[in-house]
C-alpha cells in the first residue's frame, strides 16, 4: 500500500484510473477543473485507456456520458455548480434510463450572486433526479467511494447513477495523505461492467429511452423507487466488503459518540471533520454531544438514523444549502422522518468558513430551543 499526499480531485481521478471507464466526457468548471485535467493527462500518457470527449458544455457532457453508458460501457464524468444545473434535465433521463453512471460533483454554490466557493446547494438541488448521492468527508473517502460507487451503481438490483459529492476547495484543492488502492485488488473487487438491460448492439437490437404513456409511466417510476430502496442494503454490503478487502469500512451513516449523546449534530461532507473536533472539546467540558455523519443522502437512510438518534433529546442539523421558505434540505428530511426535537442551521454558504465557534453556537441554540431554523454567521445590518 502506498500513501501519497494529494487533493481530493487527484484522489478521485486516481480511483477513476483503477475503475477503468471506457468513455470519459468532461467539461471543465471550477473547482472540478483539475479532475478534467488529470484525466486528460492520464489518457495522453496512456495511463487510462479511455475515450476522452472534450465536450462543448455540461449539457452535452452528461448527454454523451449517458449515450456511452447506453451503448454498454463503463463511463465517468465530473462537474460542479452551474455545470450540474445545466445537466439537470439529463440527470433525470440518466436515472430513468437506469444508466449506472458515476459522476463526481465538486460541491459549489449556485449563482446569483456568482460565487465559485463551496456549499452543497448544487447537488441538493438535484436530489429528486433519481441518483444515489454519496457525500465524502476527505480525500481518502473520495478515493474509496468512487470505486464503491461503480459497484453500487452496476448492481443488478440497483442500476441507478451515483453522484459522489466532495466539497469544493475544502476537499478538491486541499492536500491530504491518501492510501491509494492497488489495481489488482480493485479488479477483484470491481468486476468488468457487463450490461444486460441496456446496450446498442446490431446483433441484438434494443430500443432505449422510449415513450411510456400513462399505462406504463407510474410503474417505471415505481421501479426506480424499488431500486433506490434496494440500494440501501447494497451500499452497506459494498461498504462492508470494501472494509474487509481494504481495511476501511463504509456505511450509509457514520455515528461518532452518539450512544449517550443528548444532542446529536447531523451533517454531511467535510464539515464533519470540524464537528468531530468540537464534539471532543465539548465532551471534555462534560457536554453530552455526538455527531451523525450522513454519507448516503439519497437513498435517505432514515431507519439507520432513527436507530442512532432514538435516545437523543435534541437534534441539530447543519445544512450548507437552503430550501427557501422552510430551511435546509437535510433538516427538512430529518424532521419528516425523525420524531426528535430538531433544529436546523444554515451555514457555510458560498465558501464562508465553518469555524468551531459556529458549531458551538449551533449547540447553544439547540439547547435554548428558541428558533427552529437558524442562520449561523450571518452579518447583521449595522
Amino acid at each position, binding site marked *: 500500500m502506498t500513501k501519497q499526499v494529494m487533493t481530493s480531485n487527484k484522489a478521485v481521478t486516481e480511483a477513476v484510473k483503477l475503475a477503468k471507464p471506457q468513455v470519459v466526457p468532461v467539461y471543465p468548471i471550477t473547482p472540478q477543473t483539475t479532475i478534467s485535467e488529470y484525466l486528460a493527462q492520464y489518457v495522453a500518457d496512456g495511463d487510462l485507456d479511455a475515450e476522452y470527449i472534450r465536450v462543448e458544455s455540461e449539457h452535452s457532457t452528461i448527454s454523451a456520458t449517458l449515450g456511452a453508458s447506453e451503448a454498454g460501457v463503463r463511463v465517468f464524468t465530473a462537474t460542479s455548480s452551474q455545470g450540474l444545473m445545466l445537466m439537470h434535465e439529463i440527470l433525470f433521463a440518466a436515472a430513468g434510463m437506469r444508466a449506472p453512471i458515476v459522476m463526481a460533483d465538486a460541491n459549489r454554490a449556485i449563482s446569483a450572486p456568482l460565487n465559485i466557493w463551496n456549499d452543497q446547494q448544487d447537488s441538493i438541488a438535484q436530489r429528486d433526479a433519481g441518483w444515489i448521492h454519496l457525500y465524502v468527508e476527505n480525500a481518502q473517502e473520495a478515493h474509496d467511494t468512487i470505486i464503491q460507487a461503480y459497484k453500487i451503481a452496476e448492481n443488478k438490483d440497483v442500476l441507478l447513477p451515483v453522484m459522489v459529492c466532495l466539497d469544493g476547495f475544502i476537499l478538491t484543492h486541499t492536500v491530504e495523505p491518501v492510501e491509494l488502492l492497488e489495481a489488482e485488488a480493485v479488479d477483484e473487487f470491481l468486476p468488468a461492467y457487463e450490461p444486460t*438491460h*441496456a446496450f446498442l448492439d446490431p446483433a441484438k437490437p*434494443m*430500443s432505449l*429511452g422510449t415513450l*411510456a404513456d400513462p399505462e406504463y409511466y407510474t410503474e417505471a417510476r415505481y*421501479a426506480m423507487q424499488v431500486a433506490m430502496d434496494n440500494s440501501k442494503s447494497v451500499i452497506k454490503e459494498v461498504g462492508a466488503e470494501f472494509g474487509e478487502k481494504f481495511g476501511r469500512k463504509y456505511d450509509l451513516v457514520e455515528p461518532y459518540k452518539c450512544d449517550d449523546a443528548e444532542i446529536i449534530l447531523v451533517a454531511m461532507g467535510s464539515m464533519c471533520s470540524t464537528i468531530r473536533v468540537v464534539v471532543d472539546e465539548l465532551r471534555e467540558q462534560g457536554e453530552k454531544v455526538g455527531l451523525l455523519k450522513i454519507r448516503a443522502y439519497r437513498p435517505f437512510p432514515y431507519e439507520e438514523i432513527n436507530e442512532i438518534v432514538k435516545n437523543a433529546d435534541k437534534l441539530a442539523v447543519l445544512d450548507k444549502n437552503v430550501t427557501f421558505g422552510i430551511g435546509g434540505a437535510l433538516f427538512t428530511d430529518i424532521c419528516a422522518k425523525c420524531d426528535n426535537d430538531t433544529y436546523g442551521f444554515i451555514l457555510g454558504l458560498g465558501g464562508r468558513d465553518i469555524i468551531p465557534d459556529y458549531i458551538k453556537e449551533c449547540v447553544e441554540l439547540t439547547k435554548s430551543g428558541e428558533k427552529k431554523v437558524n442562520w449561523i454567521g450571518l452579518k447583521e445590518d449595522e
Partner: protein
Amino acid sequence: MVSIGCGISEPGSTRNNKTGSWRTFKPVLDKEKCVDCDNCILFCPDGCIGKEHEIDYDYCKGCGICKVECPVKAIEMIREE
C-alpha cells in the same frame, strides 16, 4: 412490471399495432398494369408494400401516396366498406 428503464428488446414490435384500421380508402393494385418501377415500395410511409408490390392491409393507412406516385396509374383507391 415494466422492463428496466423501459428498454424494448423486441425489434420491430410495432407490428403488433395494426394501423390498417385507420384506413378510409384502400389502394388496390392492378398487377397487369404494373411496370415494376417500385415507386410505391420506396414512397410508402409505412413500408407495407412488399417485393412483389403486394400491399399489407394490416398496416396500410390508406394515405394514397402509392396511387399518386404510380406512373402508369395501376393503383386505385377504393372506399372501405
